[in-house]
């Protein structure tokens, strides 16, 4: 498998010399990092020339500290049985990328989601603004600087918990006189 991976990496490198390759995995995977300008051409190349027909998954990771979004395309070749992680990074403050849905139609859906959840603008993406959320007014929720717990506490009602630490079964016994069943006794405090 190692030779096969080397062979594939060399083929990619021949076309895209400026990529960074990470190949220290002991299973059928290697990573390719590329700048955002070449992402279209490498994906086209992988799909049409090298037979990586299947787009397994696409991800966006918010690296807040580094001020960048990392977009990962996981492509799979049914013939070689290898998956490649193609990574690219875009600026977090100006997240713009050209749409990729002409390569795989399902990327259309992914891009709509990223636009909504991370605020990444895909130029040329023709779709309604709303995909999953409706009437959302806050910041894109999947960004790491959005605090969901605080938002939820502020927006939604909360049912108050019990203030005492009394055992429920004992409380029931006290109220109704119902016996604690035998099997439940061992859980009582």
């Amino acid at each position: 498998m190692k030779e096969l991976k080397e062979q594939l990496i060399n083929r990619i490198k021949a076309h895209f010399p400026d990529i960074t390759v990470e190949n220290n995995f002991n299973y059928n995977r290697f990573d390719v990092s590329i700048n955002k300008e070449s992402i279209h051409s490498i994906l086209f190349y992988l799909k049409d020339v090298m037979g990586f027909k299947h787009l397994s998954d696409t991800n966006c990771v918010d690296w807040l500290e580094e001020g960048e979004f990392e977009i990962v395309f996981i492509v799979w070749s049914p013939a070689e049985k290898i998956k490649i992680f193609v990574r690219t990074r875009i600026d977090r403050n100006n997240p713009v990328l050209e749409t990729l849905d002409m390569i795989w139609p399902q990327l259309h859906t992914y891009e709509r989601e990223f636009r909504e959840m991370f605020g990444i603008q895909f130029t040329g993406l023709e779709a309604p603004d709303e995909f999953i959320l409706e009437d959302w007014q806050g910041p894109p929720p999947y960004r790491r600087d959005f605090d969901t717990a605080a938002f939820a506490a502020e927006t939604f009602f909360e049912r108050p918990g019990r203030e005492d630490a009394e055992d429920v079964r004992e409380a029931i016994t006290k109220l109704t006189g119902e016996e604690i069943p035998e099997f439940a006794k061992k859980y009582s405090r």
Partner: protein
Amino acid sequence: MINDKNSQKIVDIIQNWARQHSIWVLAYGTGCGAIELPPTMTSRYDAERLGVRGAATPRQADVLLITGYLTTKTLKRVIRVYEQMQDPKYVVGFGSCTINGGMYYDSYNTIKVLDKYLPVDVYINGCMPRPEAVLSGFAKLQERIAEGRAEGAKKYKENLEWYRANQKKIIPNWVMPDYNW
């Protein structure tokens, strides 16, 4: 001669008996709890023997089952559907998520306490509630109907403003026709 009050009482008892034994559940799987409804309706548990059966549209349904967590987007539809149902109508909260948010207590998109938005008649707890729990929930609802205590719709009508304020708080774009009876 029977006086009006007594005859009304008898009529109420008969009507409540009918309502109790004929519960048509709206076919709306709002959350993951809907997965335990097919087993509830099929051979081992067979809810139909209690008079529980599905109804396709809100106009015909008696019970709105909120099967689990409610996202804000679904809440809007649920309110719409609830208001289209015919009085008397009942809401059954299904699963922990409807009671206190369950495991999505910190999610920005799910409500935590259902009875602030809709009048809940019966809660069924558990994640997820087993078919036995669902049946016991229905049994509890039947009990309440028979006693004439399942009057969520009346409560909703009386406290409409309060419910509306709560609903509008999380649904900013309110385009629904008004509840006008």
